[in-house]
């Protein structure tokens, strides 16, 4: 906004040193979990893999472990709480692509979740008169349908400036809810019962994926989540991620540097929508029932709160944020009624005091960045200019 022409500071060694001090202060004060991030970055690749494997193993074991104090019981079934956390985490990872990477404020994200849910329901529920397909097939179909709607909404609106986009998506979320109410085929409040589930029968003859047992659904969801994370990571460390962050940082400059900004914004929207649709389909299957009541603006704002709380732009943060936003009201049932108020306030407070969220992390935007930066660091250590050499010692303590 502010257009200050000309110099802001004359470069000299001191100014540079100031800049570096600012940077290192910022990174060390960077968040409640910053020391963790710090230590993580210091681990070698194999160490990171081992650590990751342990984390993944714990994640899979979570519903079975039912840890005391952490558990949401007796108020809410623990495996179902885990499932809700996983679904919110998945949603947050999707919304993070749109808001966190590309900087596009989507306030109607629940609409894509709804599209996914309805797609799954209409293709599997006995209440639906249409073609039926196996439940697992509805996951990619829901994703595709939601992406289609993402493009449908994105193409006209993504040419607009960001603040218009916010209100248009807000309106779109409302419209989807209204249409679900007034279009008879969507069955309004009656909704769809007995949404499908993956095949498989347990020893006792009941289906493995039942609506009362959250554990198998949880496992399915986090498996999907892990795949999505890997793919999102691939995108982040590619020209796509760079284009998104460039758009977020300065859209006009990005365009002038040769980034087809509109195209990449539509991609961000479509990919975000696809992940939203996917989570909707998972949620519809796990709950077994959907109607028009679940897809309101409030839920969109909760999703946004999850992304912002976790650390906008950071996919691990998004998982954390999603899990926290789902977990707190289920664990502390006393606050359940206040959750919208709480997360509304959380948004304001975070923006004022802690815009980076719980896990502030920068995107890694180069496929081979780590190696390169290590090489740069090693080379400057090998042949340091005399002054820089003393600085290493000075700051390393």
């Amino acid at each position, binding site marked *: 906004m*502010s257009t200050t022409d000309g110099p802001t500071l004359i470069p000299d060694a001191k100014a540079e040193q100031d800049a570096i001090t600012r940077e290192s202060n910022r990174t060390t004060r960077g968040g409640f979990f910053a020391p963790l991030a710090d230590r993580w970055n210091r681990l070698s690749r194999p160490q990171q893999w081992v650590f990751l494997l342990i984390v993944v193993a714990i994640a899979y074991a979570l519903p079975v472990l039912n840890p005391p104090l952490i558990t949401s019981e007796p108020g809410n079934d623990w495996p179902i709480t885990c499932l809700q956390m996983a679904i919110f985490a998945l949603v947050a990872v999707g919304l993070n692509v749109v808001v966190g990477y590309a900087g596009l404020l989507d306030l109607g994200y629940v609409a894509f979740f709804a599209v996914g849910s309805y797609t799954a329901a209409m293709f599997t529920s006995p209440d639906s008169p249409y073609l039926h397909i196996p439940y697992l097939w509805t996951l990619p179909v829901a994703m595709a349908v939601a992406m289609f709607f993402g493009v449908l909404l994105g193409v006209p*609106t993504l040419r607009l*400036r960001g603040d218009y986009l*916010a*209100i248009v998506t807000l309106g779109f979320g*409302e419209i989807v809810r209204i249409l679900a109410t*007034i279009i008879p*085929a969507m069955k309004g409040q009656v909704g769809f019962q007995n949404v499908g589930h993956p095949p498989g029968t347990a020893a006792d003859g009941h289906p493995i994926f039942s609506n009362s047992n959250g554990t198998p659904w949880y496992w399915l969801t986090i498996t999907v989540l892990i795949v999505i994370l890997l793919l999102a990571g691939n995108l982040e460390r590619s020209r796509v991620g760079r284009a998104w962050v460039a758009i977020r940082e300065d859209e006009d400059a990005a365009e002038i540097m040769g980034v087809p900004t509109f195209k990449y914004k539509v991609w961000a929207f479509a990919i975000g929508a696809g992940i939203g649709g996917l989570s909707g389909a998972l949620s519809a299957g796990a709950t077994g029932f959907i109607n028009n009541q679940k897809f309101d603006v409030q839920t969109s704002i909760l999703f946004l709160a999850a992304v912002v709380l976790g650390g906008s732009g950071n996919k691990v943060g998004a998982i954390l944020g999603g899990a926290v936003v789902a977990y707190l009201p289920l664990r502390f049932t006393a606050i359940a009624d206040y959750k919208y108020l709480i997360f*509304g306030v959380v948004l*304001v407070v975070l923006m004022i005091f802690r815009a980076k969220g719980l896990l502030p992390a920068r995107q890694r935007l180069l496929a081979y960045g780590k190696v390169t930066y290590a090489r740069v660091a090693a080379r400057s250590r090998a042949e340091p200019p005399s002054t820089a050499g003393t600085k290493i010692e000075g700051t390393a303590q």
Partner: protein
Amino acid sequence: MLSTLLLQVPMDDSWISFDIPSLMQNFWSATFDGLTFGAIYGLVALGYTLVYGVLNLINFAHSEVFIIGCYGVVFTLTSLGFGPNVPTLGPLAIIGDLLLALIVGMIASAVTALALERVAYRPLRKRNAPRLAFLITAIGASFAIQYGIFLVRGASPEPAVTMFQPTPIFDVFGTIVDSQQIIIVIAAIILMVATDQFIRRSRTGRGIRAVAQDPDTATLMGVDRERIIMTTFVIGGLLAGAGALFYVMKVPSGVFYAGGFVLGIKAFAAAVLGGIGNVRGALLGGLLLGLIGNYGQILLGNSQWTDVVAFVVLVLVLLLKPTGILGTSMGRARA
């Protein structure tokens, strides 16, 4: 995909229709009613437009500024003995009470708007936060206020308050125009003309225009930007509070925690339709949107369509003429 599915649906329960005869038949009543709603949209739209002018920010929480005004109006009237039935007071007493309710509503809204500015937006401005932060704060604040109200007042609407019995005033093409419609439209137009004149002629108004055009230069020229921003929020709040009185008059049982939200989107659409940042545009956009919504609802056969129609209008305007009908006159053309 969905549309092909929909084609197979038997169209017996008419969720959508293109009922042109019905529109023809109800054309004039839809017009007068639409203008009445449009006047209310216009008053709320002014708040969006003014704040957008000086801050380039969609103040999502303006819908809550409005609904708090509605609560102010309802509480005042209830405590003055108004209820669902037509009051038995004399006309002068009613006018006095309504004026009191108007003042309370305006103050309630203005205080809310001012508090928002001080608590939520100013700290962000201080540290030069990115636009996204402002928008997220705005939506977060809107949400927090909504659910704050929800916790205190619950989900159900406040009991209806009837202010007076609308009396037929004259007859146009066989359709009666009543006193309520006339009062609302005339009062809204007077308020908007007053605002327009204030922005154009007063010292503060000049300050508002200067900040809208170029905040940096305005500051250099000795305009106190912070004070101007505060004043703008207050004016937007006062107008929303006035809109609140007319809204309660028109929709006596429409005051509930989320009541502002839906109206807010329509008011914003009205502001964009007229040309956001343009004071006269807010009135024009409001009236037009009121008409379009009402025609659309009758044509399509379900009151829920009003919101859909408003949304479609918003998107179409943004696509075809983002500067709206009258263009931006208060703010600069954004590069």
